[in-house]
């Protein structure tokens, strides 16, 4: 048996392989469910129901999917250029901090203005944080994986410090309750982001913003000079330099763009869902890391990010809904892991093919004289 690189990738592979991968993931999940004493079909039905069908389920799924769409998009933007920004998590916190600060500062101003201010502040916060690993990478060739990852902890602890360990502007210090259970100040009503309802499906502004950003990023990468440069540098940085591209500037721009998108995701958490700076909730959710999974499953294609975010968001949401004595939440985690595993494994079949041969394997020398 040999594995060899495909010379041509037939178009149907791009459809068949992901579907097969997901089917395989469900098959293995079924085996695990069965082994743990949960009837597989019934469990899948319950899962699917809790994620997408039951009244309000889809709206809840959208709530879970929104931050994942932002962080997934942030990861995809950077990974396309082989810039491994693992800092989506921290950049989302940063956006949540700056977004909430602006919301409190602008209290009393007209609502659209406050919301716009929050979006801009979130983007700036995320971009500024991402600029740190970007500058280190561009000018000192520091590994951005390590630096961006480490900053996640720094910002995470800063976030907790703001609310739990200091008397910061963002901390609620109004009453007795607040001094016993520290929490962030409630944001003014003007800072609540609108949502639209279609039948029973609630679409928050953040989700629509994520879709808009996904389209924008797609256009940017597929149709513009900037995107062309990013793709060339991502493919071969030397070829980029050879062609006279400013590779350092591109590193800075792409990292900041990635950070800005994650940061808007943070602001959306403030404005759409939490209405206060909520360190514990944000840190528990680990949107940034799940976003990397979303980007990987979407094969860094911005348009695929939103559907994938909905799928993973749905699973997460179903996990919350079903979790209980008879259905441990861990099982949903197992399924998520299996989907990722099978999808990435399936990639192998898109790029390579397996050939079965009998007899001795013929080898062609590849060494030059």
């Amino acid at each position, binding site marked *: 048996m040999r594995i060899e690189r495909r*010379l041509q990738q037939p178009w149907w592979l791009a459809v068949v392989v992901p579907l097969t991968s997901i089917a395989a993931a469900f098959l293995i999940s079924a085996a695990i469910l069965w082994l743990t004493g949960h009837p597989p079909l019934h469990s899948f039905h319950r899962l699917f129901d809790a994620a997408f069908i039951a009244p309000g389920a889809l709206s809840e799924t959208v709530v879970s999917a929104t931050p994942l769409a932002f962080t997934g998009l942030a990861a995809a933007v950077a990974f396309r250029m082989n810039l491994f920004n693992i800092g989506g998590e921290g950049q989302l916190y940063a956006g949540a901090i700056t977004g909430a600060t602006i919301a409190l500062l602008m209290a009393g101003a007209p609502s659209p203005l406050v919301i716009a201010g929050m979006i801009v502040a979130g983007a700036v916060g995320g971009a500024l944080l991402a600029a740190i690993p970007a500058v280190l990478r561009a000018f000192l060739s520091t590994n951005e994986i390590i630096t961006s990852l480490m900053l996640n902890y720094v910002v995470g602890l800063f976030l907790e410090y703001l609310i739990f360990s200091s008397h910061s502007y963002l901390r609620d210090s109004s009453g007795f309750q607040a001094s016993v259970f520290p929490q962030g100040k409630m944001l003014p009503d003007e800072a609540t982001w609108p949502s639209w309802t279609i039948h029973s499906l609630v679409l928050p502004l953040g989700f629509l913003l994520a879709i808009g950003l996904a389209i924008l990023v797609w256009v940017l990468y597929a*149709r*513009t*000079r*900037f995107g*062309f440069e990013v*793709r*060339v540098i991502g*493919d*071969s940085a*030397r*070829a*980029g*330099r*050879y*062609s*006279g*591209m*400013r590779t350092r500037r591109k590193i800075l721009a792409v990292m900041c763009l990635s950070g800005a998108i994650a940061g808007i995701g943070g602001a959306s958490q403030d404005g759409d869902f939490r209405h206060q700076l909520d360190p514990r909730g944000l840190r528990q959710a680990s949107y940034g890391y799940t976003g990397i999974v979303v980007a990987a499953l979407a094969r860094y294609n911005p348009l695929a990010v939103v559907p994938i975010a909905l799928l993973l968001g749905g699973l997460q949401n179903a996990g919350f809904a079903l979790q209980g004595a008879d259905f441990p939440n861990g099982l949903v985690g197992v399924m998520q892991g299996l989907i990722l595993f099978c999808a990435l494994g399936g990639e192998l079949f898109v790029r390579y093919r397996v050939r079965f041969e009998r007899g001795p394997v013929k080898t*062609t*020398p590849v*060494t*030059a*004289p």
Partner: protein
Amino acid sequence: MPPAVALRGITKRFPAVVANDHVDFEAAEGEVHALLGENGAGKTTLSNILTGLYRPDEGEILLLGRPVEFHSPRDAIAAGIAMVHQHFRLVSPFTVAENVVLGDQQDLGRAFLLRTRAIEQRVAELSTRYGLAVDPRARIWQLSVGEQQRVEILKALYQDARILILDEPTAVLTPQEADALFETIRAMAADGRTVIFISHKLHEVKAVADRVTVLRRGRSIATASTAEATPRSLAALMVGREVEIGRRHEDRPAVGDVVLALDGVCADGDRGVPAVNEVSLEVRRGEIVAIAGVAGNGQRELSETIVGMRPATRGTVEVGGRRVRSGDPRSAIRAGVAYVPEDRLGTGVAPTMSIASNLVLKSYRRAPISRGPFLRFGRIRDLALRAIDKYDVRASGPDEPAWQLSGGNLQKIVLSREFSGEPAVLVAASPTRGLDVSSIETVHAYLREAASTGVGVLLLSEDLDEILALADRIAVMYEGGIAGEREAGSATVEELGLLMAGGQEED
């Protein structure tokens, strides 16, 4: 007494080339025997056969008169053959002593626990005996390149190799280190070991070897005693006499103004040591100037410096009278410098991107390829279709990724793109390396065409035939500097070979 090692009629074929064609070679015990030849002459293939890495298609290997057959490098090591490669095979976090016992299966290295003290003592003994000064407890990463080479030799001596092959050992050494190495080589030979010294530097061969075998195009041309040979005669053997001289086509245009001027250019290599040293050179419109030289004498670094991919540490590059910013490829492109890089896939093109995208790699910034921030893919596709047609590129279409193309077709893409920018200067680094004969013809035709339309062409090549066929003027690079410059008409192969090998002109 039979020779320590004898190769008889060794032939090794690769898909596109016969690397060794009935090579005969022998060396006696206690002899230092040099293998001399240009790049691609078959020296490395021959040593790979002797060390069991390749198996010959024909011919036999005899050790002390007994035929042997090596199925793997392990067999060769067991037979007492060791090689010191140009690129060291050392584990950098390990100590010298640890590296020395690394491949040892029998002796001290076999013990479950390392007997550090005993090993270090053995290493110290060997290093004093052969003058290989290195601290057995030092870690490899702390050592200079010269010291690392000594560790490689110690490894061979520790295995008690009777036959040592040194592959261009002085390429990485300072002159002082090289002298010390020659002392070691003589000490090893005095001990009855056979040293096979691979080189293309004539004075070294004269200095250290007893006899020399010259390889050319995969054949063993001659074996001579170094006492009798002169650098001139060796150079002639190395590059061959059958090459005709000055075959440049007749209809060359009148040579115009200076379009590329280098003045005292210095640059560092990848390891941060000086690689280009005070190079001054002029190329005129319509002229092909070739830089000859054995690989690794600074040609790659020089070409990268001219096109801005490597900063110059000193000196200036001027194109059409305008100074090009050092280390800024875009400035060079704007000044009209086209560049055919040595590394086609990876530098010359972005491998996974389409032919069409690669064709606009340098023109995408301007109209009509782009409008505002947007690229016009329709135009790019049309342009690609036309280029594929005009340059006869064998590809399935403009969307085919570049890495799927053969070397010749890839080079056509690169050339087509570089010419489309209407350059003033074309820098071509080894533009035909690895190509088949017909692609080589095509590339040569394009270079001539470029010159005839008034482009100043700077060709860097290791192939003297190519240089003599194309160039108007020839400069020879040796150890980072220009060793000499000749008009193509008056240059002789012997003279060029001598300059390439670092021989003095008075010899």
